[in-house]
């Protein structure tokens, strides 16, 4: 198969876009699309300080690299959940790239900030590990971005993550949560909350792997040991099966969701009055926040 731009041998085929690209044309196409996503959703500009959530996996490594190439002002934030044999393997890749690009790195750990590693939480678990981890990780990323004075928090969510999340929210009838999601998260503005942005949301996992390999970026491709039994893992398998048979369903799902989002924002989540958690002072819609509720649960 040949590159649609220059006719050289293609390294990636994008059936959903009816395009194939060679090494050089793909990396340009990739960077152009990230820039286009940032502009389309008016995410941020070059005066803003962007906190980049970097785990050491391909998506966040690509995100930090491409935002740096595009000339944005960055600070890297890594959350160490305390998952033995997983996070300790991925953090060295973050440190290496931050050093290479001269981007300051700040590591926030579950153990130091919340008193328990995820491995310790899971021993007493009443829910799936991903439920605890998602809440704790979002909380710490927001806290770190706020403490570091960031205007936005950029996360490496890709097209696959977005498609999975949309379906999972539908399955659980989480319309309030859907209203808060999208390219720039949040419905109600609050100075305790740093808006989260997703510059890679229109780029598939596969494109991220190819970009990382072509750019020689080192990342860890270990799968989190806790993800296997999750609903997300099943949804991912199903969507990938469908995408292989019917190319374009992932991007179609995302675009449909984007068209619905103004309606969702208008009708859901607006009445939610944000208060300060009685226990920790973070923002919440209830009396206490989910982080404190979950920590109490696994005490």
């Amino acid at each position, binding site marked *: *198969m040949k590159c649609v731009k220059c006719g050289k041998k293609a390294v990636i*085929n994008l059936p959903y876009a009816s395009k194939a690209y060679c090494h050089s044309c793909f990396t340009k196409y990739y960077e152009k699309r990230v820039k286009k996503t940032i502009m389309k959703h008016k995410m941020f500009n070059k005066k803003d300080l962007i906190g980049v959530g970097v785990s050491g996996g391909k*998506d966040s490594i690509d995100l930090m690299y491409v935002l740096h190439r595009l000339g944005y002002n960055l600070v890297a934030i890594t959350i160490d959940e305390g998952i033995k044999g997983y996070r300790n393997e991925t953090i060295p890749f973050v440190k290496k790239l931050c050093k290479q690009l001269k981007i300051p790195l700040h590591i926030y750990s579950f153990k130091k900030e919340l008193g328990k590693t995820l491995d310790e939480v899971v021993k007493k678990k009443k829910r799936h590990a991903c439920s605890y981890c998602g809440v704790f990780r979002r909380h710490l990323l927001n806290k770190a971005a706020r403490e570091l004075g960031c205007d936005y928090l950029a996360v490496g969510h890709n097209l696959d993550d977005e498609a999975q999340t949309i379906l999972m929210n539908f399955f659980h009838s989480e319309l309030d949560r859907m209203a808060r999601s999208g390219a720039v998260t949040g419905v109600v503005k609050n100075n305790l909350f740093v808006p989260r942005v997703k510059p890679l949301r229109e780029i598939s*996992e*596969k494109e991220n*792997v190819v970009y990382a390999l072509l750019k020689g970026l080192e990342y860890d*491709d270990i*799968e989190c040991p806790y*993800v296997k039994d999750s609903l997300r893992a099943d949804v991912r398998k199903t969507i*990938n099966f469908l995408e292989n048979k019917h190319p374009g369903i992932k991007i179609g799902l995302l675009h449909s969701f984007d068209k619905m989002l103004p309606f969702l924002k208008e009708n859901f989540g607006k009445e939610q009055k944000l208060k300060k958690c009685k226990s920790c002072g973070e923002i919440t819609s209830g009396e206490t926040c989910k982080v404190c509720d979950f920590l109490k649960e696994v005490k």
Partner: protein
Amino acid sequence: MIEVEERGKKRKVSGVKDVSALFEKLKLNPDEYVVSVNNKIVLEDEKLKNNDKVKLYPVVSGG
């Protein structure tokens, strides 16, 4: 016979003429892997020959 490596584990596979046939033989979804042959990223239509070194990069990672 070709050598196939995935996440550091190697195995020998025979009787596959191209990458597409390799995916079929290993029952893998092509949407979930990037493939290199002899250190060059290739597509599913890439022909395979004896002693080729194939590396499979799973696209699914993280949590």
